[in-house]
């Protein structure tokens, strides 16, 4: 920029300026060297008795190392002096004394040995061999060793560490900087300063020798093992050194690279040590073959039990490799890889889940093997028996084999189907779910046709088909399978159930099963927006439930579960009508459909009321009462919103009386909805209080509060609109504000509940998602209350939660939620920009808004592309509109001076 030649009139020459800069630098350097106590600017400490200090070699965390001459022997030695002053607390001194004590016990050609120690002028020092060499990392940089030579050197290092291990000494701070290589290429391990005596037993935290009281971590982070990073001193043992050696080997092989990122924020580094899988060394250096990689990765196993147990074991395997013998370390098996994949999701229960999957796999395999064994045995026996050999013997054998088979089948069945439910909402369990599903299908394939006429087995089989169908076509539709596949399984379930009913037509439970299957089928139709088919199925389901109840009553059986099934189907009728009305574009037709919705929910409510009045009071009946009330509220909410459809056109046409009338009607519906919602919230609260540990009931309460919040928001919006567009005045605005404040209170209560659930079980993704939903609605209300900064905070939090969720479990629903959060933030950005005064600030907000709009648009489009039903058009339109708004405003700003 500044150039004297082009600016001859510059008052001062380059030379002058250079001199000034150099003088200033010199002055500052003098000041800083003083602070840093750089070797050149500070004399070595006063002569230590018996030694003559030549120069400083190294300045480390614990002290300074000098080159010295031992006066009596004229030998050159390294002399380590503890930092004095502010760095040398009693802790440091104790550590120093321990270091000396431990080092004195070690005697190995590749370990730097100690000769003497003492104090001088309050400073502690000790004397060790002086090794002329360079640290391992520097050595590796210059030496350019082949993989085999590298391993040879590493083996020696392991041998030395092992010698210490055999004496019960753990280094705890192994790293290239602590390993010196002399001119002959011999390694020397330094700084056993952090080592501590391993007792070989459980550590006694109060042991006087232990410097590391609970919670303290001693070592260098990039080379630390997971147990060191966790800071649990009692868990540090020889295997921790093996891990550090693994990191060292990794670096030796890859030119200094670390297995994972070890720079940046400390939390991230700790997290990487604890959880990040090492990048495969062979991807960094091609010469690293499979076996060497296996050795490295085994040393770096996060799980201590899967590592080499001592440095000696590691050294031996390296020796095996160098000698061309098979190594002992084995590649992880497929199942272990799955287990690891699961673990990566940091699930507290993840290990348990992974373990159970192993069992599932085992159970399934066993059951198939047994089946085959049965068949083989059977065939063999048939061949042998030839009619005259002991039929009885064959019979016994067959029975025994079948008993085995049944046991295995039970096990497999339990794990496949019950276990799935357990992990369904577990975060990160996607792979596990999919795996179980695949296994379940294989299982069904395998046992197909073998059920014979055993009713119990047939029924189980039908259940299994239904389960698979549910999963394929249900919640995860679009992710893990297709509707067609689901329907095929449902058909098979239906076929079997009808077969069973043919065998015992008066069995109430079989009718109920059939009803439930048909209900499940209706759900699939519902999701494919085929409401007619859904309606047919649900009505068929109700008919089956009616039959079941009639039969059960005649047989004097318990009606409660059957009535509950019927209730569910009745609610289903309302749900289908609700969806149909919601999807109907024509306002008049939609309003007409709403009557149907209200009737259906009302029928369900009356049935729930009857159940509650007739049966013994139970949580379940209460729950259903709450659910049906909530549904009624929802239906009225829909009626209200359909009433307001097209009201903007009415206003544009200046027909204010008609607009007013519509708003009044809508508000009336909303107020009815509010009344039901308040009741349902009260009931949900009671139920939740009765079963505090039941997540589903807590969630009902959450849903009820969310619903009430939603209704209050709509009421507020209607009043707002009246004030702004029709003829309302300040009281409308005040009413809107009051209602929004109410909604805020209600939503915050819902949020608190959701947060409690999420905190209680951090693996519960649905609960975490609920937190996100609340935040979104709260942000929305705040947005409309013009509390833009608060809205921003809530929405940002919502986005970040949703980002996390999507990273763990990218099912379409979660991705859609994530996109919605972006969309809202985009809206907020526009609003903030509009409210801002300065052009620059506006520009910033609009640009942020544009980014969010783009993110939501991209996500919505991707979702629409993936969706088999081509849904999502309206979300795309909204996002496009928002984007256009942002772009327009930005363009306007550009146009301004």
């Amino acid at each position: 920029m500044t150039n004297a030649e082009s600016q001859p009139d510059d008052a001062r020459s380059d030379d002058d300026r250079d001199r000034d800069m150099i003088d200033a630098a010199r002055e500052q350097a003098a000041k800083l060297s003083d602070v840093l106590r750089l070797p050149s600017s500070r004399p070595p400490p006063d002569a230590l008795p018996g030694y003559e200090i030549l120069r400083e070699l190294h300045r480390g965390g614990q002290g300074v190392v000098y080159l010295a001459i031992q006066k009596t022997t004229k030998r050159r030695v390294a002399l380590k002096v503890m930092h004095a002053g502010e760095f040398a607390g009693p802790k440091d001194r104790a550590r120093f004394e321990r270091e000396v004590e431990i080092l004195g016990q070690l005697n190995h050609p590749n370990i730097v040995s100690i000769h003497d120690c003492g104090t001088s002028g309050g400073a502690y020092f000790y004397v060790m061999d002086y090794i002329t060499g360079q640290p391992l990392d520097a050595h590796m940089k210059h030496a350019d060793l082949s993989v085999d030579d590298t391993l040879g050197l590493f083996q020696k290092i392991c041998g030395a560490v092992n010698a210490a291990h055999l004496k019960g000494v753990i280094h705890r701070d192994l790293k290239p900087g602590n390993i010196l290589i002399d001119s002959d290429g011999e390694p020397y391990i330094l700084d056993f300063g952090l080592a501590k005596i391993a007792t070989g037993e459980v550590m006694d935290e109060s042991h006087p020798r232990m410097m590391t009281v609970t919670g303290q971590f001693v070592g260098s982070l990039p080379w630390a093992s997971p147990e060191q990073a966790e800071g649990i001193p009692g868990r540090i043992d020889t295997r921790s050194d093996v891990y550090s050696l693994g990191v060292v080997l990794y670096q030796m092989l890859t030119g200094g690279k670390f297995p994972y990122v070890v720079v940046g924020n400390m939390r991230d580094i700790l997290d990487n040590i604890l959880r990040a899988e090492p990048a495969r060394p062979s991807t960094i250096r091609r010469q690293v073959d499979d076996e060497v990689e296996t050795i490295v990765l085994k040393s770096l196993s996060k799980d201590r039990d899967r590592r080499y147990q001592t440095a000696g074991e590691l050294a031996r395997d390296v020796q095996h490799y160098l000698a061309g013998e098979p190594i002992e370390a084995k590649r992880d098996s497929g199942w272990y890889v799955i287990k690891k994949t699961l673990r990566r999701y940091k699930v507290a229960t993840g290990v348990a889940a992974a373990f159970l999957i192993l069992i599932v796999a085992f159970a399934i395999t066993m059951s198939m093997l047994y089946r085959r064994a049965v068949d083989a045995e059977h065939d063999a026996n048939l061949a042998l028996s030839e009619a005259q050999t002991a039929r009885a013997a064959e019979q016994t054998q067959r029975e025994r084999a079948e008993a085995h088979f049944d046991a295995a089948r039970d096990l497999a069945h339990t794990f496949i189907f019950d276990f799935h439910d357990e992990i369904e909402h577990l975060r990160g369990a996607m792979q596990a779910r999919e795996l179980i599903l695949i296994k379940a299908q294989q299982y069904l394939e395998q046992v197909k046709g073998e059920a014979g006429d055993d009713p119990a087995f047939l029924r189980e089989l039908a259940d299994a088909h239904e389960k698979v169908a549910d999963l394929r076509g249900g919640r995860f539709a679009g992710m893990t399978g297709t509707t067609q596949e689901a329907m095929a399984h449902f058909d098979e379930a239906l076929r079997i159930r009808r077969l069973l009913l043919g065998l015992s037509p008066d069995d109430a439970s079989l009718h109920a099963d059939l009803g439930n299957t048909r209900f499940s089928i209706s759900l699939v139709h519902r999701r494919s927006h085929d409401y007619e088919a859904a309606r047919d199925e649900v009505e068929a389901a109700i008919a089956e439930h009616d039959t079941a109840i009639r039969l059960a009553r005649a047989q004097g059986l318990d009606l409660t579960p059957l009535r509950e099934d019927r209730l569910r189907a009745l609610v289903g009728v309302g749900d289908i009508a609700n969806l149909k009305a919601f999807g109907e574009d024509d306002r008049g037709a939609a309003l007409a459909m709403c009557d149907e919705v209200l009737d259906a929910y009302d029928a369900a409510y009356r049935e729930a009321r009857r159940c509650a009045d007739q049966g013994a009071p139970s949580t379940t009946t209460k729950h259903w009462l709450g659910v049906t009330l909530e549904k009624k509220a929802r239906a009225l909410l829909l009626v209200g919103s359909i009433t307001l459809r097209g009201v903007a056109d009415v206003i544009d046409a200046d027909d204010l009386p008609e607009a007013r009338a519509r708003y009044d009607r809508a508000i009336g519906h909303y107020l009815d909805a509010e009344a039901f919602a308040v009741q349902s919230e009260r009931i949900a609260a009671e139920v939740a209080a009765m079963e505090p540990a039941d997540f589903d009931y807590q969630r009902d309460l959450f849903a009820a509060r969310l619903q009430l919040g939603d209704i209050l928001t709509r009421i507020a919006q209607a009043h707002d609109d009246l004030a702004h567009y029709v003829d309302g005045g300040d009281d409308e605005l005040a009413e809107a504000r009051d209602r929004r404040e109410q909604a805020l209170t209600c939503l915050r209560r819902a949020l608190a509940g959701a947060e409690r659930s999420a905190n209680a079980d951090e693996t519960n993704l649905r609960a975490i998602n609920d937190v996100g939903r609340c935040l979104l609605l709260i942000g929305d209300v705040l947005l409309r209350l013009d509390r833009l900064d608060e809205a921003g905070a809530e929405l940002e939090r919502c986005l970040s939660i949703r980002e996390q969720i999507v990273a763990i479990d990218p099912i379409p629903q979660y991705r859609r939620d994530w996109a919605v959060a972006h969309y809202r933030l985009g809206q907020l950005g526009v609003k903030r920009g509009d409210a801002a005064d300065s052009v620059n600030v506006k520009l910033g907000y609009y640009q942020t808004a544009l980014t969010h709009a783009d993110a939501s648009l991209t996500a919505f489009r991707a979702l629409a592309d993936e969706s088999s039903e081509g849904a999502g058009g309206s979300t795309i339109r909204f996002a496009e509109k928002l984007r256009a708004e942002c772009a327009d405003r930005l363009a306007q700003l550009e146009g301004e001076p």
Partner: protein
Amino acid sequence: MTATEESLVSKAVAGDHEALSELLQQHAPAMRRKLARAIGDAWRSSVDAEDVMQVTFLEAFLRINRFQPGGAGSFSAWLSRIAENNLRDAIKWLSRAKRPDPRRRVGAPGGEESYVGLVEMLGASMTTPSRAAARGEALGALEKMIAELPTDYERVIRLYDLEGRSASEVAELLDRSPGAVFMLRARAHDCLRELLGSASQYFTVTG
């Protein structure tokens, strides 16, 4: 290497600052030309060669004791390397500054948080534990260290890292180019890391 230069270098390495000043004065014009070329048109508006030179000189004084003379041209090569590194830091951060790093703000400006954030940002290769810092016991020490930094380093840390001002603001306050702010900051962080201790040191994770 001329006889004079050779003797100047060996004096400088031995700690003679006068000799080093003389050497730097000799090499300054070449450095200025090289830097101007390397900065080019793309960064001319945001990086000033003299800013880079100033920091390079400071580092030369700080590091001369570690320099190993290796015959003709070795001092010039050493000095060029320092200058190149400095320039690279300036430009690296400038390109990054276009997409601001959210973690740059190390906490509420001026508060205790900002010190803790700074310690965290300095990374793992330091002695003093961030959580110990969080407990407040190391904050005093950190503050003392910052106060002892060369003035420019200190001001950049205070204005940018602790007070949370923008790079352009800091540049204006220091009357430097924005590139210089990033370069000064990188060097200041190096210094702090050194003051806090090297990677070979222990540190406490919790306590």
